[in-house]
């Protein structure tokens, strides 16, 4: 099991002096198997990013338990095997693409010639090789998203967590990103993927969770996804159909 969530609940303090609490996630239980490609869909504010932050150990649960590869999130040995692409990737703009990727490659345990080869290889895959020496402040939104994808796949992480990975990309970029994700999954990486765009989820994921107002309403299995369009399943689940 790569991700195991047990009765997970998370509250946020509201802005009124923190007296009121808003329940962002309620009693979420879910497991994602090794090598699986799992998609999480939901409307804006459903709690998708909160769930990802909990899995990464950036924030902590109020109730319930999280296990990532059998350990607590935030464990350094586990973190070396995980990669993450945030919804709006903001990297240090005074660095260039190559420096960012080398830094992350080193953190994932790569070194020497391997790191250079891996960085150049992934830069070519995301079509940024020519821009590798350009400072990130000169990158467009789409280029930053492609760099985000590159950093997520450098060093062949075992678990790849992607928060809206295809937003901001043009049609060619979307195809490239989809291919990259599918290939990584085929090579054994577990994919945990959130998106608003159901078409992308349908193309990439084998199992889909539907998160609505902080609750995991349904997990659609492969067979279900084959039988009906995801849009119908989603709308029916959230009660809009």
């Amino acid at each position: 099991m790569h991700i195991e969530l047990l009765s997970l609940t998370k509250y946020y303090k509201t802005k009124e002096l923190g007296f009121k609490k808003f329940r962002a996630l309620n009693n979420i239980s879910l497991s994602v198997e090794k090598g699986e490609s799992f998609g999480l869909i939901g409307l804006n504010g459903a709690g998708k990013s909160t769930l990802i932050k909990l899995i990464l150990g950036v924030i902590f649960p109020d109730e319930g338990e999280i296990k990532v590869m059998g350990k607590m999130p935030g464990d350094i040995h586990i973190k070396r095997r995980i990669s993450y692409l945030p919804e709006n990737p903001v990297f240090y703009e005074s660095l260039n693409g190559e420096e960012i990727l080398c830094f992350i490659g080193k953190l994932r345990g790569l070194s020497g010639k391997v790191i250079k080869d891996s960085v150049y290889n992934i830069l070519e895959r995301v079509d940024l090789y020519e821009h590798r020496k350009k400072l990130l402040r000169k990158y467009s939104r789409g280029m930053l998203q492609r760099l985000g994808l590159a950093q997520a796949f450098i060093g062949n992480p075992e678990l790849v967590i992607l928060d809206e990975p295809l937003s901001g990309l043009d049609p060619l970029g979307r195809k490239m990103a989809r291919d990259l994700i599918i290939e990584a999954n085929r090579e054994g990486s577990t994919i945990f993927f959130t998106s608003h765009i159901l078409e992308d989820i349908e193309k990439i994921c084998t199992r889909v969770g539907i998160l609505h107002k902080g609750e995991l309403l349904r997990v659609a299995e492969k067979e279900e996804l084959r039988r009906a369009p995801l849009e119908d399943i989603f709308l029916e689940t959230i009660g809009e159909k």
Partner: protein
Amino acid sequence: MKEAFEFAKITLRQSVRVKSFYGALIMTLVAIVGLFILHSFAMFEIPRILMNYVLSYTNLIILLLVFLTFFSLIQYDIDKKTMQYIVALPMRRRDYILGRYFGLMAFSFIVSYGIVILFYPFLIILIKQRPDAPFSSIRYFLYPLFLLLEVSLISSFALLFTTLSTKSIISILSTLGVYFIGHSLDDVREFILTGYGSDVPLFSKILIKTAWYLFPNLSVFDVKITMTYNLRFTLTEAFIIVGYGILYTVAILLITLSVFDKKEIL
């Protein structure tokens, strides 16, 4: 520790690419011209006046650069939420704090010693023309060390405030507050202890005394006059100042690490 080292290198790279760094380089070239102008105007005690000028300039530039660079870095981390991404990277939370601290210290070391080394040949040429007062190269090169201790302490406070606040402006203002309090508290305490302070209400006296123990006394690192005028400065005094700076920095960094370890990065 390898991760902290890698992040320190990133911090150093970011620091030398902040625009104010290039501004400081240009200012330094202008300041070298200023050294020659000062030399032509000064009437006597040339070595002391010139050394004081260089050390004051180094002090000003380092503090200005460290504040500007650090604030630009943490503003990015806090306001643009980069910290969320950094914390999710394969490094421990403490690596972020230590990487930022050591990266900034390396930057301060390079800039401070860069400035004094750059000025040194010009200083020697000008002093040799009118050597009417003693000049100690050892004391000249020792000065940045004490300046770095002050920077180290301020940086550790800046990191502490970064971990405590959710808005970079709060962190920036708190750090500036510690800097100004740290430089004036000793004088204020001395004032209330002498006869001049007899009118100060008891509550204010207690408040000032408490603050004197809580806040760092940054004026101890200001050894410019001692170095410039060749005043008595024993090894014991030097060790006490160095020890004070290191211990205080370590204590603040430990508090910062413990706070950051439990912090939710929203």
